[in-house]
């Protein structure tokens, strides 16, 4: 009882944080059709600034860290990334009116990590003076890449099987493949249809290569900025420029990014609506489920290897977050037959706001309760 009331007080306090205020502000601004815009160049630059700052601070601190401590959390991160995809494959994809490839892609995006959500969590942890391992932000790629790779591999296997079945069927029936494509692709119509035979004829059960997907992820702008920051923090001495520039700008730039995320969320609601309610429900539940799953794994590491409670919150946050920058292009290239409205809509319009506004305050409150009561 006392726990609950304490928790609620904590939670409500977090809701007044300006970070969240900017997020909601952005939603309202877009909802009332304001012409306010944050130019694309600024948006991209802010993301770069935030992630390179996260990387720099990690890199600078990592030097003294014992990287062996990172092993268990990193393994857990990868595991959670992979599990996320299978959870989606066996829940969302089984629902009526949900296309399997769309569901797999969506699950992949929810398994992947959002740099901005991570940045928001770090800010809140600092405001609350909760300590965490300097390398915790570096768990990002350990979850991001396995999730995307798994999603693309699972989707490829599924598509190949479907195609083979369709071919056998078409051989039996000696029918044009046009009907199949029309029902599968939705938009892929006549003009293209006539070439389908040639194409599917050539697609023998080909293996999915994993390295290109990993490379594609690492080359994404978000991960690149993070890793660049890490490397610079590790190998050069950026203290002055960090203290005079990257660190003081962080909080302010984050608030503007939150505004953009809020505007985005509202703007994408329409896309989500088109693909149906199941996506909305999944997008609402998934961050909480993935997050608490990761929180649980994190606690295991906490009790066995002394992983800090702040680190547990970070692990839970990257699990709860869904990628908004680098994930979509990777998926678009890797699972081209999936409808981007489905996964981008789910992630941006519902997943990210839930992760930011519900999950982070929740995880921090729980961590604080655990700390207070001798976690």
């Amino acid at each position, binding site marked *: 009882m006392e726990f609950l009331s304490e928790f609620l007080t904590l939670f409500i306090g977090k809701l007044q944080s300006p970070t969240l205020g900017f997020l909601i502000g952005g939603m309202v601004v877009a909802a009332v059709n304001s012409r306010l815009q944050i130019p694309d160049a600024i948006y991209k630059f802010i993301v770069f600034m935030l992630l390179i700052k996260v990387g720099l601070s990690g890199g600078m601190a990592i030097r003294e860290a014992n990287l062996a401590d990172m092993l268990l959390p990193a393994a857990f991160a990868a595991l959670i990334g992979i599990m996320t995809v299978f959870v989606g494959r066996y829940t969302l994809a089984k629902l009526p009116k949900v296309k399997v490839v769309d569901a797999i892609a969506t699950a992949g995006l929810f398994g992947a990590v959002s740099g901005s959500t991570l940045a928001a969590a770090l800010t809140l942890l600092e405001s609350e003076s909760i300590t965490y391992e300097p390398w915790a932000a570096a768990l990002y790629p350990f979850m991001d890449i396995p999730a995307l790779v798994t999603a693309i591999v699972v989707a490829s296997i599924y598509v190949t099987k479907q195609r083979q079945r369709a071919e056998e069927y078409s051989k039996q029936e000696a029918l044009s493949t046009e009907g199949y494509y029309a029902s599968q692709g939705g938009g892929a119509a006549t003009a293209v249809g006539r070439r389908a035979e040639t194409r599917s004829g050539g697609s023998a059960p080909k293996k999915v290569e994993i390295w290109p997907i990993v490379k594609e992820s690492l080359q994404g702008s978000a991960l690149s900025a993070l890793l660049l920051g890490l490397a610079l923090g590790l190998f050069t001495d950026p203290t002055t420029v960090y203290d005079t520039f990257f660190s003081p700008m962080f909080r302010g730039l984050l608030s503007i990014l939150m505004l953009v995320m809020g505007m985005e969320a509202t703007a994408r609601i329409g896309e989500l609506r088109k693909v149906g309610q199941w996506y909305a429900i999944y997008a609402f539940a998934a961050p909480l489920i993935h997050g608490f799953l990761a929180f649980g794994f994190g606690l295991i590491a906490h009790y066995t290897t002394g992983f800090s409670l702040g680190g547990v919150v970070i692990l839970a946050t990257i699990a709860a977050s869904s990628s908004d920058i680098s994930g979509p292009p990777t998926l678009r290239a890797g699972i081209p037959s999936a409808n*981007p409205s489905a996964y981008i809509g789910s992630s941006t319009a519902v997943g990210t706001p839930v992760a930011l506004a519900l999950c982070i305050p929740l995880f921090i409150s729980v961590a604080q309760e655990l700390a207070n009561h001798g976690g």
Partner: protein
Amino acid sequence: MTQQASKLVIVTEKLLLKKIAKIIDEAGAPGYTVVDAGGKGSRNVRSTGNPTVSDTYSNIKFEVLTPNREMAVKISDEVATQFFEDYSGISYLCDVMEVLHAHNF
């Protein structure tokens, strides 16, 4: 020295920029021009994760002058076969009355 040519126009998702440029190159076309474009077609989506609140376009429009109709059709066929099943896109052919000045015709 002026001569007839065909103009092939391809509008599709920005994501495919490099891949289509490669197809055009490999078909032996003497060159191409590309501009950023927005648009609407049968599928209502051509988002690749850019914020929609920013006003950047996410389509591209290629214009390729080819010395003959066959090359244009070949490029178009190749592009459509590879991409138009999964991606938004349209391609069409225009008459060019004459190429007046060019370095490579």
